[in-house]
Each structure stands twice: as C-alpha cells, then as structure tokens.
C-alpha cells in the first residue's frame, strides 16, 4: 500500500477529539483489504492515516471520512 496520506484536524479540546475518534472508529472500512485507516486522538488533534493501493481508493476513503467527520462536528456544534 504505497498511496498514503495523513490528516491532522484540530478540534476545540481533547474531549471532543476523543469523541470524534471513538465515533468514527466504530465503522470499519468497507474494503479493508484495499484501505487501511488508522484514527487517533492526540491531545486536541485528530490524526488519521490512510494507506491504499490506488489513488482512487485513497480519494474515496478520505472523502467518506470527511463526510462522517463533518456530521460529527456539526452534531457537536449543535448540542455541545
């Protein structure tokens, strides 16, 4: 898996970063044999690493993750 990307997303605090990591971690990647995703909260930073075989797969996975993260952060903003 030579196509790789690491995202670092700052959240307002450590608690919210931990919540985001735990919520999104529940669902495995649909194509686990082609995509490896690692999520960790380090302080208030949400760190996500993707390893894929193809650029297309990388794009699909990252887009999907960002959609989920947006839903989580919007929920936090509405009900924090």
């Amino acid at each position: 898996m030579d196509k790789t990307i690491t995202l670092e997303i700052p959240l307002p605090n450590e608690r919210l970063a931990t919540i985001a990591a735990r919520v999104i971690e529940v669902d495995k990647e649909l194509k686990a044999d082609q995509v490896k995703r690692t999520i960790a909260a380090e302080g208030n930073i949400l760190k996500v690493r993707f390893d894929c075989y193809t650029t297309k797969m990388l794009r699909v996975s990252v887009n999907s993750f960002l959609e989920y993260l947006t839903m989580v952060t919007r929920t936090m903003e509405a009900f924090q």
Partner: protein
Amino acid sequence: MVIAIGFEGSANKLGVGIIRHEGDQVDILANVRDTYITPPGQGFLPRDTAQHHRDCILDVTQKALKQANISTQDIDVICYTKGPGMGAPLLSVALVARTLSLLWNKPLVGVNHCVGHIEMGIEVTKAKNPVVLYVSGGNTQVIAYSQQCYRIFGETLDIAVGNCLDRFARILNLSNDPSPGYNIEQYAKRGKKYIPLPYTVKGMDVSFSGILSHIEKIAKEELPKGEITPEDLCFSLQETVFAMLVEITERTMAHVESNEVLLVGGVGCNIRLQEMMGEMAKQRNGVVCATDDRFCIDNGIMIAHAGLLAYKTGFTTPLEESTVTQRFRTDQVKIAWREN
C-alpha cells in the same frame, strides 16, 4: 419514569421521536419527520438519501426536543436503527446517535427496524397477540410472536410489495409526493376495469417480481392503445398484490390460531388493504388493527419505543458494537421484554 430519544433513517424518511414510559403508561412527547422526495419517475438512491438525512437530522432533532419540551439532560437512553435498511443512510444516522451518546453521556440502544414497527403498532392499537403483516418498500413479512422471538411465518422471496408499487409508480411517472404508494392508491380508486395479473402465492411466501414485469409490459404495450387507463392498472395491481397478502396472512392466522391481524409498515396505511384484510378477518370472527400515517410510515418514535422496551430489560449496545447492518432479520432479536 424513563425517556428515550429514537433516530430512524433506514430509507427515505428521517425521523426523530421522543417517548416516555412511566410504569405502564406510554407517552409520545415528540414525533418529527422529514421525507426525501425525488422527482417523478425516479427512485431514491442511497448516497443522495444519506445526504438528505445529514442535512436535516440536526434540525429535526432540535424540533423534537422543542416539541417534547424537555432538555437533553432529561433523556435517559439514545436509540437508533441498527438495521435493516440502506447502508449510507443508516450510517449517517448512527453517527449522530453515537456522538450524542458520548456528548450527553447516555447509553445507546441499537434497534431492529421491523421490531420497531411491530412494537409501536402493538402499543398504539393495543393488539393482544396478533398475526403481524409487515409491509413496506423494503420488507414484506408475516410474523407471529412465540417464545421471545418474532418468528417469520411467510415473506416475499424477492422484492417487497411496497417496492413493487413504488417501481410501478415510476413506470407511470406518478408523483413521489407525499409517496408513490399513496398516489397509486388514489389512482386505483378511479379504476374501473380489472386486468388479470399473475397471482404468485407460494405456500406461506409471496413473489412480486413477476407481477411487476408483467404489468410493466402491459403499461408499455396496452396503454398507448387507449383501451385501458393508468387508473385501471393501479386498481388491478392493488387488488392482486393485496389479495396475495390477505391469503398468506389468513394462512398464518389459521396456523397459529390467532384472531387478530396487525398491519404495520408504510403500505399498512393503504385503506384498500385494510378493507380487504378486514373482510377476511370478519369472516374468521377476528379484527384488524392498523395505525395511521403518523406511525405506519417510518418514524423515530417507533425506534424510541422499541429501544426503551429493550433498555428496561437491561439491554444496551456498547459503542464498539454500535455499527449498522443492511440485513438484520426480525427473528434475530431476543424479545426479552415479553414473557413466555
């Protein structure tokens, strides 16, 4: 006193409901819904449906909390549809339920969509021990309760009856607002000529794909000739598929010796189906129980209710297990809140 909030979004309807159990008393505090409606001739696709749900779920939740006139602290448990349903919409809703579970520090309960319909139907109609006909766009099952399990006595072998109706509405280019099934129902009332269609009951099971193909062929070949009308076809389709549903329901009633029928699911709203089922039940000295569109159609309150029943028996879903599944059989759920 226990209060649950329920999130439902397994198909094109996004619903949030809030329910309170106080002893045996059940109070519906809020039941808000937003339906994703596509243009005539089109069905809803998972990706677009999920986007619709993500766009409106927070507003619907706020409306539900306001309607219930409670604060988030008052909620004891958060319930969501674990399945069955469309993958992306289910997941979008589960993300919100999980996030709120951690934000508010409340337990989570994953609910089976079919069990939600059944429990809400039983609660609203007060049916004692009915044969349940669960009919919607995604499911067609005849169910009876036995030994802590909702057992499937008969079901569709291919597409759901609601799927058949919805796809026929697409063929005729009927509006999807408020729902294609409702619009077929209105057309059928004006139908005058019955056109024979395949009658495909298979013991306790049914099959609808052949009927859909056959009536699609008739629509394309015969309608242009002007001898029959779209209204006639809608009338004929309803008479055929509903008679099939009545037959398998009656067979189950005879088998389990019940004299009650409970209609649940979106197609259960159909007055003609209720009439036909009522005639059969009357002949057997039985009764038909049905709810109106507040509860027949997918809603959040049914998830809150079924989730709360499970929660009160001690059931919760750990966060690590709070996934969704597109296939979740009705009989996979242990009905711990009912005895015997």
